[in-house]
């Protein structure tokens, strides 16, 4: 949900932020207002946490925790097939900060640079600056202090292993788990280089990745909640004359509210055949709006010419079943397997129409 903040940065006006800050300075702790409130017992928070079974500092506590599993009952149900070392090796992809799980391999930022530019820069920017609302990767601005920078690998991520693990398990966005281990090392090295954490020609490998000290490695601490102490005052809890509305959501007008005015007799979605442009927006626009992942951008006659020459039927077949082309990959049905073939055909026709082939 990190992108929420991203948008938040852009959606709220700087002036409004100042209004809030000013309001915040005037605010008093709730507990100091009104005479009818009871003092909070000093022990209340602790006993609350204990009663709730909260695990403060669990990371540390768990080292001495002895759970109540009974080894004698292992295999009681006898269900399932034994997971062989080969099966486990194929699926066990996770990597930890101490390097456990890293496969053999190596790469430098120098090797990673062209890979990054081909497979990552479209969303993350050539210098890791991020494109649109896709995540920014590089930058070392302080996290607090007024600038409200985005969190990056350089200013936020505590472990280099997380970068390797995530690139390997989930990137590139359109083709997860398509990179070789050495490609992952090289791209990881390049992102670390973009954040000025390693040198351009330093070889990253399975033995030294865990030794990298990330700038924000000490930036995290265990959740201390509950961290507020409201009391259930019933009468005279505030001076009514001091209540001010500090924010009214309608001032910004940034949320979709058409449905608040809609008639209740709107037919259910999906009851009519889906139009090509609707399917396009739902399934195709992610890549074809911009040409992401080597897709021919909508309306780009040059990009479409070669495809059109192959004939509509073949384009539809590729759109339905998927296709690996020279410039990129077309996932089956744009990755939206629930779409009918007719819906995909309609979307293809819509895109053809946009280059004058309708």
């Amino acid at each position, binding site marked *: *949900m*990190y*992108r*929420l903040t991203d*948008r938040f940065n852009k*959606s709220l006006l700087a002036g*409004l932020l100042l209004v*809030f800050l000013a*309001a915040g300075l005037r605010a008093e702790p*709730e*507990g100091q207002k009104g005479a009818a409130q009871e003092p909070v017992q000093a022990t*209340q928070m602790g006993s*609350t946490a204990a*009663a*709730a*079974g909260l695990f403060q500092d*669990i990371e540390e506590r*768990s080292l001495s925790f002895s*759970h*109540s599993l009974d080894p004698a009952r*292992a295999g009681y*149900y006898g*269900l399932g097939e034994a*997971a062989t070392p080969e*099966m*486990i090796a194929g*699926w*066990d*992809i*996770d990597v*930890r900060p101490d390097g456990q799980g890293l496969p053999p391999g190596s790469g430098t930022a120098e090797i990673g640079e062209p890979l990054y530019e081909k497979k990552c820069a479209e969303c993350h920017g050539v210098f890791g600056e991020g494109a*649109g609302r896709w995540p920014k990767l590089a930058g070392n601005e302080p*996290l607090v202090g007024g600038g409200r920078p985005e*969190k990056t690998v350089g200013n936020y991520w505590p472990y280099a292993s997380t970068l390797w693990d*995530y690139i390997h*398990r*989930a990137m590139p966005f359109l083709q*997860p788990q398509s990179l070789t281990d050495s490609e992952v090392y090289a791209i990881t090295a390049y992102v670390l280089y973009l954040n000025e954490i390693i040198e351009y020609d330093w070889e990253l490998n399975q033995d030294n990745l865990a030794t990298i000290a990330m700038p924000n490695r000490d*930036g*995290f*601490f265990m*959740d201390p*909640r509950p961290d507020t102490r409201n009391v*259930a005052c*019933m009468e*005279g*809890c505030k001076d009514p004359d*001091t209540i*001010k*509305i*500090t924010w009214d*959501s309608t001032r910004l007008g*940034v949320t979709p509210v058409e*449905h*608040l005015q809609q008639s209740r*007799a*709107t*037919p*259910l979605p999906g009851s009519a055949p889906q139009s090509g442009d609707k399917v396009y927006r739902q399934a195709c626009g*992610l890549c074809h709006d911009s040409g992401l992942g080597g897709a021919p951008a909508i309306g780009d006659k040059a990009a479409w010419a070669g495809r059109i020459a192959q004939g509509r039927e073949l384009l539809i077949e590729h759109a339905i079943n998927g296709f690996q082309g020279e410039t990129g990959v077309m996932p089956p049905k744009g990755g939206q397997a629930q779409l009918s073939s007719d819906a995909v055909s309609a979307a293809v026709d819509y895109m053809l129409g946009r280059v004058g082939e309708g």
Partner: protein
Amino acid sequence: MTRHYNSETARLLGVIADEANKLPVSDRRDFLRKGVAMAGTAIAAATASGGALASNLPPNIPASNRSLGPGVVTNPYGQPSRFEGDVVRRTVPWLTANKISSISFSPLQELSGIITPNGLVFERYHAGVPTIDPSEHRLMIHGLVERPIVLTMDELMRFPSTSLIRFIECPANGGMEWRGAQMEALQFTHGMLSCCEWTGVPLSTLLQEVGAKPQGKWVLAEGADGAAMSRSIPIEKALDDTLVVFAQNGEALRPEQGYPVRLLNPGWEGNTSIKWLRRIEVGDKPWFHREETSKYTDLMPDGKARKFTWVQETNSVITSPCPEKPLRGRGRYELEGLAWSGRGRIKRVDVSFDGGVSWQQARLKGLVLPKALTRFSFEWSWKGNPALLQSRAIDETDYVQPTLTQLRQVRGVESIYHKNAIHTWKLAADGTVTNVQID
């Protein structure tokens, strides 16, 4: 509207033809003649006016009393009435870069009771919804265990199962409003929240079966989606109430909710309840993967961030009235809302009509279950005065839902997640309701 009545007519004629085919030939002609005449009457009545038909209101006999409807299995899997067409999940497009890694909101303003229908449970995907054939799905459990296993869905479902009604909530619910109110509808202020009856096998049963070793302190759960979504979960939770779920509200999980199998960590932030679960590994340390370092950590004003912020603390909101459900004139109303706590049962909910100056205790109605949505109610009479409506929940640990001011004093405004503050609706003299923040 024309298309609708045409299809309605076609359907009605289909029904008539269907029934006619079951009659002897001699009776069929007569039946058809009467049936077509009846359908014609229905069309005439329906097209007479766009809105409510006077001919369907007392003292007239409504058309539904004078016609037939579709027969059984016309819809083998039933759908809501077409008049409920605006009860749908919605998203706020600018929240995310695209719909594949995004979130939608449940229409809390339209729901009754505490159960969220399966088709309305909020969605959160990191790589879209994978299509998984259950016959090809496997759950691997390995790591610090005596006997690593791979389970088919059939095998998983042979373990003794249990069913729990529990809420699931994204920790970013309300997170757009740390600095100020900007969501103009309840669906968007609180809709990253749903509650279902979940059926599955306790993870403790599976960990016992594989012989988890004493040095195993954490489990890694991993999904079969394009993000291979992963989270580290402490063994205390895994042995407490974590469930390996295959059904919701009586039927198989919906694809959006992890079909064929997902994790459920009751009371904890939703992203720990890994969907499309394919692998559980037992280890001695947490993995610190992307979703527990770069995301789902809470940045504090001093530049340090809280990690492993699992619990969804006590929260509540008034669902009627709300921006989508304004008041229609003066008189008596039942104010309703939802309260929930990731630490246990809701003990009490208070409501205020004056922005928190005075409070009155609401009534809890229906089931009051731990870590489940709990519905509260307060009967009142609106005299047409503007008001500032609030609700304040208290859970069984005596934790009192905080004010936004209190939360900001401790956490600043940068933490994105876990905003569980008392929420304020401004009720205007014309009955409209607006999302506001007060000081």
